[in-house]
C-alpha cells in the first residue's frame, strides 16, 4: 500500500503482525481486558478468567477467521478478497513467527484459566471448547477451507 515513504507491500494486512511492538501491545491489551473483568465485583475469580478466555477466543475467531478481505483498497486487484485475516497473514506462509505467537496465546490463556478456575468441570468444558475454536482454524490443513460453504464469498 503506497503510504508516503513507508516500506510498501500491496496488502498491509499480510505484514501488520510483524510490526515492532505489536505483540507486546496485544498482550497488554488482553491483560487490560482481563483486569477490567477481574475488577467487576460480581464475577468470581474463576468466572473472570473463563470470561477472559471466552472473550479472547470469540474475538480472535471473529477478527481472524470470520471477516474477509481488507477494509482498504489494495493494489493487488483484490487477491485477498475472500481470504480471512489468518489466511492473509504473511501471505499464506504457514508457521511464521506471528502465526506461532497466535497459536500460543490461546493455549497460555487456557492453562491460566484452568488453573485459576481450579479445574472445575463446567469451566473445563467452556474453556476447552473455546480453545478448540481458537486453535483448529489455525491448522495448515484448514487453510482456505470453508465448511458447508459458510463464509465462502
Amino acid at each position, binding site marked *: 500500500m503506497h503510504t508516503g515513504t513507508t516500506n510498501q507491500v500491496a496488502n498491509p494486512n499480510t505484514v501488520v503482525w510483524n510490526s515492532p511492538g505489536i505483540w507486546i501491545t496485544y498482550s497488554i491489551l488482553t491483560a487490560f481486558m482481563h483486569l477490567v473483568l477481574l475488577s467487576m465485583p460480581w464475577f468470581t*475469580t474463576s468466572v473472570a478468567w473463563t470470561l477472559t478466555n471466552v472473550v479472547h477466543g470469540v474475538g480472535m475467531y471473529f477478527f481472524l477467521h470470520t471477516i474477509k478481505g481488507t477494509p482498504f483498497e489494495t493494489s493487488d486487484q483484490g487477491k485477498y*478478497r475472500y481470504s480471512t485475516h489468518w489466511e492473509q497473514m504473511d501471505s499464506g506462509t504457514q508457521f511464521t513467527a506471528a502465526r506461532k505467537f497466535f497459536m500460543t496465546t490461546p*493455549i497460555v490463556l487456557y*492453562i491460566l484459566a484452568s488453573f*485459576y478456575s481450579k*479445574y*472445575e468441570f463446567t469451566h473445563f468444558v467452556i474453556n476447552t471448547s473455546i480453545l478448540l475454536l481458537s486453535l483448529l482454524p489455525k491448522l495448515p490443513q484448514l487453510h482456505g477451507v470453508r465448511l458447508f460453504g459458510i463464509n465462502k464469498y
Partner: protein
Amino acid sequence: MSVEYNQSKEWVFAEAIRSMYQAPLYHLILEGLLLVWIFRLLFFKSYKIQNKIPLSKKEKDDLVKDWTPEPLVPDLQKTLSLSTPYKEITGRPGKMITVDGKECLNLASMNFLGLLGNERIAEKSSASIRKYGVGACGPRAFYGTVDVHVELEERLAEYMKSERAISYAYGFATIASAIPAYSKRGDIIFVDEAVCFAIQKGLHASRSNIVYFRHNDLDDLEEKLKIQANLDKKDPKKASVTRKFMVVEGIYMNTGEICDLPRLVDLKYKYKVRLFVEESLSFGVLGQHGRGVTEHYNIPIDKVDLVVGSMEYALASIGGFCCGRGYVIDHQRLSGHGYVFSASLPPLLARAAVEGLDILQDEPEIFNKIRAKGKLMQELMQEVPELKISGFYESPSFHIRRKPTANQSEDEKYLKVLVDQCYQNGVCLSIASRLSHEEHIADWPASIRVSVSVEMSDDEIKMAAHVIQQAAHYAEQQI
C-alpha cells in the same frame, strides 16, 4: 474422597495449588499435550502451501530434454511490424503535412475537426506557457493540480452532460487505468474481440476473467451472458459478489464500425452488467453536438456507466477523460493508477483542450460537416475495385484493405507499395500498425486507416480518392 472446594468469594492461592494436585487426570494430560505442542511449534519451519502437483523424476527429466532455449535477441521481423524506418515530419502538421520534405494532404492524422495547428488554440496555449510554465511537475494529488485542470474537467462534464469528469495526462493510460480501477480478480468482463490495444492492456491489468465475443455480434454476447446467468443461478452467493462489466468502443479503432448502443443498454439492464464505452474516435464526431455515440443514438448518457474519451483525436490536445456519475468518477481519483501515479497534464495542453471545447461549442455545424466528408470519402473508396472498406458509413476514420486478399505478408507489401505511391502523388497515408505478438488477435488483416479532416474541401477529398484509386491499381500490378 474429593475434598469440597471452597465456594467462598475469596480466592486463596494455597487452595488453588491444592486443587491442582486433585485435578482430573484427563485435564492434566490435555494440558501436558498442549505444552508439548507449544514446544514443538517453536521448531516448525515456515513453508508456503504448494498447490502444484509434484513431478516425478522421470517427468522432470522429460521436460528438461524437451526444452529448447529461445534466442536472447528475438527475430527482428517479429518485433517490428514495419521494417521500414520512420518518416520524418517537419513544420506544423494540419490539413497538409510535410513528410521527408514533401508536402502532402494529411489523411494519416486523426485530425477530424481540423484543430491541429489551429491559431486560436496555439495563441491560448502560448499564453498559458507564460502564465504556468511548461509542465505541472507532479501527480494530481501532489501539487500537480492547476486551475485549468479543474476547469477542463468541469467543462468536459458540462459538455458531455454528465455529472462529473476526470482527466488523464495520456489517452492510452485513461482506459487502461479505468478498467482495473473497478474490475478486480474474480470479476467478469465481456468485451468485443476487436478492442484496441489500450483496452487490452486495461483488461490484462485488471486480472479479471475476460470473455470475448465476436466483433459487433451482440447475439454472441447475449449467448455468453445467458451462459453466465445460468452459472449464476447455480451459485447465487458467488454471483452476488461478482461484478460484471461490458466494454465496447463507440467507433472501433481497429475496424471503424459503430457499436449497437441501444441493444447494449437493453442487455445491460436485462443481465445486470455494467457498461463501459470507449469513445476515442466518436467523441467530437458522432451526435448532433459531437457528444459521441450516446447522442448519436439519443440515449441519455447516464445509462452508460462510464464514458471514456480521448482528447488526442478530435480535440487535438493530449490526454484522455472519463465522464459519468459522480460516485463512479470520484473512485478513480484514488484508484485510477494513471491518474494517481503519473504527472498531470501540462497546463498548456489542458488550456488547449478547453479552447478546443470552446471552438466546438461556437461552431455546432462542424459535426454534420465532418460526417458528410467521411461519408463522401467512404463512398469514393467503395468505387475502387481493388479495395475493401470497413467502417461505419459516416465515420471519418475507416479502414481500407486489399480486396483480392492473399496471405498477410503479401497484403502488407501491397499496402506499403500503395502508401508509397500515394506519397509520391501528394497524399499521406499510414498503415495501421500493431504489435501482432502482443495483441489478443495476432493475425488481424493488414489495413490502412484513412482519416478525413473537416478542413479538406470536397475537391481535395475527390483528388485524394482519385490518387488512392490509381495507386491501388498500380500496386496490384506491382505485386
